[in-house]
């Protein structure tokens, strides 16, 4: 069912579609970022598509993926059509140097918060976003924690934390001291 959607997108936006696949029944289109808004607009407004439901927006940092060559980030969109009962996944690869993408807030009310989370966790900027702040973390937070290079135990306390060493483990020093 969603295969038709895939075909339609490939037909209409052949220049911008980088690749497609349907792993485990999840139809996926990898898009060039410039075409994102146009494709989504088409998906939403075309009566054959009618993707009125923006399920999820997230991103993946692929820098630690073994044997992967390509742009570091991928922003992943999931759409769903309530009337046609089909789903599609769009992926937009982004280079680390230029992490910017058009916002979908004007098309879907819920997109803004999802985009804010992607900014918060991955540092992807969204152009024309009505509200572009961090969402889950505090404004003073440095860095974007879901990037693979963010340490698993990165402490960023706003006030000094009491150190409570565990029986056979000490907390790592916050920074290496210069002599």
């Amino acid at each position, binding site marked *: 069912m969603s295969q038709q959607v895939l075909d339609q997108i490939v037909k209409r936006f052949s220049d911008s579609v980088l690749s497609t696949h349907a792993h485990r029944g999840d139809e996926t289109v990898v898009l060039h970022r410039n075409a994102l808004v146009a494709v989504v607009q088409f998906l939403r407004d075309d009566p054959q598509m009618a993707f009125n439901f923006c399920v999820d927006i997230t991103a993946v940092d692929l820098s630690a993926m073994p044997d992967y060559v390509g742009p570091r980030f991928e922003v992943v969109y999931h759409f769903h059509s309530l009337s046609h009962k089909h789903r599609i996944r769009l992926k937009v690869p982004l280079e680390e140097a230029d992490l910017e993408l058009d916002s979908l807030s004007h098309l879907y009310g819920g997109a803004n918060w999802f985009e804010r989370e992607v900014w918060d966790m991955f540092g992807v900027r969204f152009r024309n976003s009505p509200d572009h702040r961090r969402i889950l973390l505090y404004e003073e937070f440095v860095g974007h924690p879901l990037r693979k290079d963010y*340490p*698993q*135990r990165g402490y960023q306390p706003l006030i000094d934390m009491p150190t409570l060493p565990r029986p056979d*483990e000490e907390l790592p*020093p916050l920074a*290496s*001291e*210069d*002599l």
Partner: protein
Amino acid sequence: MPTLKIDGQEIQVEKGTTILQAAQRLGIRIPTFCYHPGLSIAANCRMCLVEVAKSPKPMPACHAQCADGMEVFTNTQKVQETQKAILEFILLNHPVDCPICDQAGECVLQDNYADYSLSPSRLFTKKVHKAKAKPLGPKIILDAERCILCTRCVRFGDEITKTGELRVMSRGEHSEITTFPGKTLDNPYSLNVVDICPVGALTSIDFRFKRRVWFMSATRSVCTECARGCNIRIDSFQNKIERYVPNYNPKVNQWWICDSGRMSHTRWTANRVTEPRNTRTESSKTAISTRDVADEMAKALVTSGKASAFVLDASMPNEDAFVALRLARAVGSRLYLGGRAQNGPQDELLRLADRNANRTGISAIAGPSPLPGLAEFQKDVASGAFKTVLFIGGEHEGPDKWAKLLEKVSVIGVLADIRSDLVDIAHIVIPAAVPQMREGTVVNSHGRVQRIRQAIRLEPAGVVFPYWRILKRIATTAGLEATWNSERAIFGEIVASMPQFAEMTYDKLGDLGLPLGSNGLSDVDVDAATRNIDPSAPQYRKTNINSRMPWQH
């Protein structure tokens, strides 16, 4: 040049290449137990049986040579059934020992069973019991029940060390690895059999039950025990070094390492210097810091000027040596190259008499005129030329009584990573980081530049530092400009000023290193590099380290 097809992929190989090697080159994995690239082929485990077109029976891939027009299948149902049957057979008498077996986690038997069988046994016989926990020598324990009789250890003794202590005794299911009566397994390379044992039959007494392998984090580094510069993997857990394991480097040590190098980490952990000391001033302060003593040292050096001397450690990494040379020359001190003994045990395999890791590198950095050695230093000191002497490194081969020799020197300073007589008599002791706590490069006796990497954190934090950081502090206090902030930056400067290091960077050095004067180009042959990923040799396959442990990030 035979051309053959493996699983539909075509490949052309040199004559004499085995199917296994050809498959590895194609990235096709064939399970093995007894095959080891560094040893002769025994083909006794039968794990690598593959189907060859027109051959009535499956053939052992490790032994069968490629022939023109051959068609090999590694994943047919027949092969799968064969593999399952072989594993069922091998596991027939294997004890249910994983919980107490040190090999669990890096056990080839576990891997092969998980990847090629995962089916329950159909045989319900009583297991044959053999000797358990039987010492073969002072360093190694044998568990004969776990042994799958691949004879890798036997072949190692026969072919590599040529000592031949081990043999297979008895027949059939009672076969057992053992030493000749009256002999023990005790040669300078004996612990390598622990690495090459695909199962947990041979275990090292030193590492026994110490740590589960999947908890440890692995760091690729270089052994600093002698001038060979063997590649090692440092396995550590919670900031503690647990063991050294050899890492494959075709240009240096191949698959092996000597026992003394392997055990050398104990030397570092047992004798560390962790406190600064200054016996010259009656310090009213209860605690003096590394910074204080470094400043004290700087003052002494500046006041002494030309009447001062630096004694470098021939094991110190290039970066430290570079900074030390700059500093000494700016202060006007005389420079000597010290270090550990140069007449240690040596043999044809790996061990070298020079027990210092970086003599070649320091000489290269020092420039055309070679630095005078400890003999000259002793002479000069005896003549009373120096008021201040700064030793870098705790261990220097010297006279029996350093104290007597250095009687007339008013300030003896040591940047010490390890405790020694010299440290005991020194006036100023500045604790320094051991090699496993820092980055750097060393050059082995054959002129190969290789990286040492930080495996554990600096500890105690804020007290110990790498030599170059201490030297930088001394330089700054002495009024000199020192702007380096990392080993990488210093290495960049070395590269810029020394043509022998031209165009090298840490990244280009990579895992296997580069020879001096190679313009940063790789000189490793491709074939050897592919053999590096040989899954059959446990010490070289991707380590099964549990990266989950949060304190390792």
